[in-house]
């Protein structure tokens, strides 16, 4: 039986500035009818470029050096643009990472769906409309009739992705390329999309290329998994065996980096002294204005405490208010309610004096944004040292020590942020936090933008620093598996409210909030 998709020795360069950059090197792969091939790799490994190459949508500076791409019997590389247009949608579909940008904001959903169906299935408008209604109903969307008349901004991201997936399947192509279709969605929504994918795939038997950075996730949806590194396919194996018997180093690294809840990294118990207590903290961003109703609060009466040396995880979907807690605790957002720190009451940002600011540090999500691009690493680190007067006489030596503490060479002090990698930037941000010798460090989604392997090393670093300094962590994340590895307790937030605050070993218990259970269930644990 011929493969639906077949690549042979495909090599591609990007022309950049001075010399060409090899992006794909001798790629060969096959997808059999009805098969799902998972493609994993860290960012920059070339997996998305491969998808674009298959879709024949390469940037202008791409140069294909060799190899073939066949869809069934068709040689895609040799097709003229007009013929490609006829292939796309009809024989090969694609689902994108971010559903919100894949729909034209000024056309109704129905129009865009029917337009695609008319085009790829040769239906009449009326028939396409009927089919669209049926497809949308089939992907568990309520009231498809009304949905079709809405504009993309009027429906949620999950609904959009469902619509896009329904459309892609509805075109009955031979192959669908999925480019991280759940990454932009919330955990629970993403999990449901995955379920939907599995169901539709079983129903239609369409072949798929499923691209993701998440090995755990891919191993659950794919039949086979291919691992990419620096433009090469380094390993291909059945999904069932890849975790159990990773062959290549890269795969092993990926497997090792996948957080597993059962693999606890923290074994001590925190002390009993309450370091910080939040009492009914509410954050409301927009102030009431003339002619305008006040917006709902971002967090509503949230209360919890952190003990000295404790790691408290806060989990929840985006928009659940977890970051607002961090902003309230650091005085970045105005809040009502109260905070007690070391027994001292803090009613507003004005009460946060030098001592508090020194003791409570924060590390932000985006390493690119958290370092001032116009300051060198040394300058960045010198500020807290100067500000909090740790008594160090030799500033440069102290900066060197801080850098070494976060496993960076002391020579990095003279570098500019843009000369560092994402992981390195995050280390500098961590060093900046620890320069103040804090007793509480708030980590706001600090691992989210990083590749899994880098993520693991950052976690390792944080735990080492905790061991050194005894600092407590308020660890905000949406990665359930990760937090279950390190937190002593987990706070679950939903729509601004704290729904659960559980010791780590109680999260799987029966008495937890239903939402907590959903959240835990939606986190894919690796197979095998």
């Amino acid at each position: 039986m011929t493969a639906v998709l077949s690549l042979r020795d495909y090599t591609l360069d990007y022309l950049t500035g001075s010399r060409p950059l090899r992006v794909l090197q001798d790629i060969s792969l096959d997808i059999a009818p009805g098969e799902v091939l998972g493609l994993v790799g860290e960012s920059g490994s070339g997996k998305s470029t491969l998808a674009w190459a298959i879709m024949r949508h390469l940037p202008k500076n791409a140069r294909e050096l060799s190899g073939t791409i066949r869809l069934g019997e068709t040689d895609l590389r040799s097709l003229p643009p007009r013929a490609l247009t006829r292939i796309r949608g009809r024989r090969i579909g694609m689902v994108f990472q971010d559903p919100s940008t894949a729909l034209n904001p000024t056309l109704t959903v129905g129009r865009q769906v029917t337009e695609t169906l008319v085009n790829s299935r040769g239906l009449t408008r009326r028939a396409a409309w009927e089919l669209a209604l049926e497809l949308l109903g089939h992907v568990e969307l309520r009231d498809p009739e009304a949905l079709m008349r809405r504009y993309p901004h009027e429906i949620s991201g999950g609904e959009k992705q469902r619509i896009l997936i329904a459309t892609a399947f509805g075109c009955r192509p031979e192959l669908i390329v999925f480019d991280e279709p759940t990454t932009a969605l919330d955990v629970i929504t993403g999990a449901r999309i995955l379920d939907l994918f599995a169901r539709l795939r079983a129903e239609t038997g369409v072949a798929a290329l499923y691209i993701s950075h998440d090995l755990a996730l891919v191993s659950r949806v794919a039949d086979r998994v291919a691992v990419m590194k620096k433009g090469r396919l380094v390993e291909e194996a059945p999904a069932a065996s890849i975790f159990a018997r990773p062959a290549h180093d890269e795969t092993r690294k990926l497997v090792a980096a996948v957080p597993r809840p059962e693999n606890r990294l923290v074994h001590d118990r925190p002390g009993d002294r309450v370091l910080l207590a939040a009492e009914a903290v509410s954050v409301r961003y927009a102030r009431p204005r003339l002619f305008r109703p006040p917006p709902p609060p971002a967090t509503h009466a949230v209360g919890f405490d952190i003990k000295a040396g404790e790691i408290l995880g806060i989990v929840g979907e985006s928009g659940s208010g977890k970051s607002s807690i961090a902003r309230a605790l650091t005085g970045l957002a105005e809040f009502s309610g109260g905070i007690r720190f070391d027994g001292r009451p803090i009613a507003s940002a004005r009460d946060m004096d030098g001592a508090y600011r020194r003791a409570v540090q924060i590390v932000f999500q985006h390493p690119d944004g958290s370092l001032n691009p116009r300051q060198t690493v040394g300058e960045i680190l010198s500020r807290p040292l100067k500000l909090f007067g740790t008594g160090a006489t030799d500033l440069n030596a102290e900066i060197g020590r801080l850098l070494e503490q976060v496993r960076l060479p002391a020579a990095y002090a003279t570098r500019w942020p843009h000369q560092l990698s994402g992981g390195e930037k995050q280390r500098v941000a961590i060093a900046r936090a620890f320069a103040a010798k804090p007793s509480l460090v708030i980590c706001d989604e600090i691992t989210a933008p990083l590749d899994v392997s880098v993520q693991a090393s950052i976690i390792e670093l944080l735990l080492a620093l905790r061991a050194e300094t005894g600092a407590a962590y308020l660890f905000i994340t949406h990665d359930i598996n990760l937090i279950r590895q390190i937190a002593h307790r987990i706070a679950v937030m939903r729509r601004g409210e704290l729904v659960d605050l559980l010791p780590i070993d109680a999260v799987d218990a029966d008495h937890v909030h239903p939402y907590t259970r959903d959240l835990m269930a939606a986190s894919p644990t690796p197979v095998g």
Partner: protein
Amino acid sequence: MSASWLLRRLALILYTVFIVSVLVFGITQALPADAAVTLLGENATAEALNAIRERLGLGDPIWWQYLRWVGHAATGDFGLSMRTGQPVGPEMLTALGRSLLLAVAAILVMLVIAVPLGMVAAVRQGKLADMATGLISYLGVSFPEFVTATLLAMLLADTLQWLPATGYVSPLEDFGGAVRHLALPVLTASLILVAHVARMVRSETLDVLHSDYIRAARLKGLPERTVLVRHALRNALLPVVTIVALDVGYLLGGIIVIEEIFAIPGIGRQLMVAVTARDLPSIQAGALIMSATYAVANTLADVAYAVLDKRIRYD
């Protein structure tokens, strides 16, 4: 778009008019010319000057003069022109009408030229059409109105004698004559706008063409024509409303020069005359009316944008 949003916009217009009124009143108070002297001319005697000062209330405290002026202005009474003795309000509104005629004509001409130009340039990015548009844009935005106006007048009116160089004919009196007389000023006014708007339309269209949903539309297998016409051009056109609104301010400024050169007794020229003659009531009324026009035009553009673009929700 909710009622409260409209209310807020109205409040903003009022605030704008308030700030502008303070600004204009302040500046005119500081103008180095004695209102009484301006009014009476060179033959005024001291006693005549005093009499007129008393009549105009020039001896009152500044804030009181301001309040009196604003109070009268609110009822449409901007006082009498110091130059002509005519009521300023009606004079300026008549002038505004002529300016609006010129401005609207210029905007229409501009849209007809600039929008296709910008879109073609974007679709054929990097090609000859794009480069030609780029060149036109650079030239257009780099010639100040007074240069364009004088050069165009030199060429079309004086050398070729195709069009009358100056003057204003009301379209109600003589439509053909009005068109002929407006041709040069409209051309001048639209030129700099064409350059600017074509650039913006090109950039907006490129934005849209590079957007994910256009990519998605292409990858869905939609024919290129459908992608361009149904998905790209439509969306690229929307921001043009805002661009045009922003350019109204530019146009109003340019109109001062254009009206001055082509002797169109519109609000720009009235203002220019008023400024040189130190005709304070005319300056105040003209500046206020012009600025209010701009504020209203901007609001209208926002409303139009909100009506056209389903994404924007004003609440």
